[in-house]
């Protein structure tokens, strides 16, 4: 159990770092692309050459969401209905979480990983471009965030599952970081 828990800590750090670094790029890019697009409309000619601002917005948002799902799970940020949960003993919550990850989350991730990979590969082979981006065959990159996000989410799920299993085995885990402050 101990090496598994140590591995879980390593995976948690890796997933968090990667997701947060990606969010730190994608969110400012989304805001910047949007603000620049407004400026371009207000000052015609100033940014005339950059035509990809508008079509970039929805993909940037999509990538942001897909690639941070795992990170949010690691921060215990996903919304729960905890009317009963805080009355359960830790072993019960751990058992429920273990079932949730193994029975529901990992199957979901597998489906997204399997079909999402094919989805992205097709876009890559066809050199698919965005609707308004005739010269940029980058659609595969955006579609690839489905399997990539599913992989990060599955890794996060594995970390949660290992810790839940440890609690069930009588080795409760001290949470490494406090839960997210802003979520309910």
């Amino acid at each position, binding site marked *: 159990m101990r090496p598994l828990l140590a591995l879980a800590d390593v995976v948690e750090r890796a997933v968090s770092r990667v997701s947060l670094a990606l969010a730190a790029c994608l969110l400012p890019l989304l805001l910047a692309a949007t603000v620049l697009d407004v400026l371009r409309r207000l000052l015609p000619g100033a940014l005339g050459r950059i035509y990809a601002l508008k079509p970039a917005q929805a993909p940037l948002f999509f990538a942001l969401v897909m690639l941070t799902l795992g990170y949010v799970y690691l921060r215990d940020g996903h919304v729960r209905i*905890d009317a*009963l949960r805080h009355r359960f003993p830790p072993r019960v919550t751990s058992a429920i979480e273990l079932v949730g990850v193994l029975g529901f989350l990992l199957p*979901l991730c597998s489906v997204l990983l399997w079909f999402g990979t094919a989805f992205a590969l097709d876009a890559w082979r066809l050199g698919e471009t965005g609707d308004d981006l005739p010269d940029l065959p980058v659609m595969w990159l955006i579609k690839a965030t489905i399997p990539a996000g599913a992989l990060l989410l599955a890794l996060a799920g594995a970390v949660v599952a290992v810790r839940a299993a440890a609690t069930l085995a009588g080795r409760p885990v001290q949470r490494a970081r406090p839960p997210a402050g802003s979520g309910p």
Partner: protein
Amino acid sequence: MIALVHALPLLMFAALALLLFSGLPVAIALAGVGLGFFALGAGLGLVHPADLSLIHLRIWGNLAADEDLIYPAVPALLFMGAALEQSGIAHELLAALSRASRRVPGHLPIAVTLLGVLLAPTAGLVGASVTTLALIALPSLLDQGYGRPYATGVVAAAGTLGIVFPPAILLFFMAQALGVQVPVLFMGMVVPALLLLALQLACHVAVGLRPGAPGRTVPPADEAESWPRLLLALGRSGVLPLLLLGVVFGSIIAGLATPLESGALGAVGALGVAALHGTFSRRFLREVLVRTTVVTGMVFFVVIGATVFSFVFVLLGGPGLVTGGLEGLRLGPWGVLLATMGIVLVLGFFIDWIEILLIFFPILVPLLMRQDFGAWLGAPWRIPAWIGVLLTLNLQSSFITPPFGFSLFFVKGAAPEGVSMGDVYRGIVPFVLVQLVVIALVLAFPLLATWLPDHVLRTPQVLLPNFTGD
């Protein structure tokens, strides 16, 4: 066996209810029920296993192919809210508002309510806004000598008031769920939201006027507290954020900007507010980024889970079953409306608006939208805005209605020791009455919700060109 097959969609809901209360993340419960019943349906030969390859396409279609850019506006608005919150304006504003209005009876509760309106529209979920407000304002209210019931009531009502003030995020999802245009719902909410605010403020003044009420004795002006300083504080923590919200609201209404554009401009403006406050730093940026990311991921994972759930629900013939069942009851338009409002009220006791809008609205709303209130409203195009406003108020009321109201538990959770659940229940009663009065008014006088969209946005011409003959 055949009965079981027909009942599968209903069993989905039973399974979902069970899993939701197990305390699993809502999104995981939704996806789990969806996939589980897909497997069951495939085993019974009701669905084709190959349909599994459509799930990622549904998610893609919902999130990435959103041409109106409504969902992408959510992280931008959350960023704006997080930046405003982290800039530290709340404490300064509360102090400044309270001091500036210290001759008005009930000035501190008034300041708390105004703060709730100002901060909450971008805060996102009920729990977050109520908790923030409780942490900032509840200790001062109790210190000033307000009773525990009233003080907690003020905070719960103020924190919940903000979530329905445009440009609240709830309204984007409500508009999406009902198929109403965002500006129409925004405009429709203006009068009812201001009514709620006015009635709450009237409560505060009435309480403040009672003999022996706290704050009756006007505290002497602090020596160090000069008017220029107070004005500066009010300006940078009150007027600037208000202007920001006004610009976001106005540009969406006027059709000058997409919701995403308005939100992004608001986000940049909020960074400016933080810079003026001297709180802009690497740590600040990191905190804002993390908060925005966490709430965005939380909200849209529920969207993804709900996509999986409803995909399977539709495959199994759920919508027809529910609509057919409800239609079989022959409730008539008013019966359907009141039944829907009742269901929403009960749901709001237990779960936050995001799940209600994403899971239950797709099932409840189609039937409601087919009901003919044209005669009551004077014109069919007013129906969606009116219903949107009603359901928004309805949802908001359920969050503060004892004994289960969602916000009440959050206030209790963030309250100092000694505050009991009974205090919270007693304190919220006047504000629940205020909600009921406003809902009744909107039901009885639909003009409250429909006049502004009609006249400012010229709804009939914009929405339904073929109705211009009116």
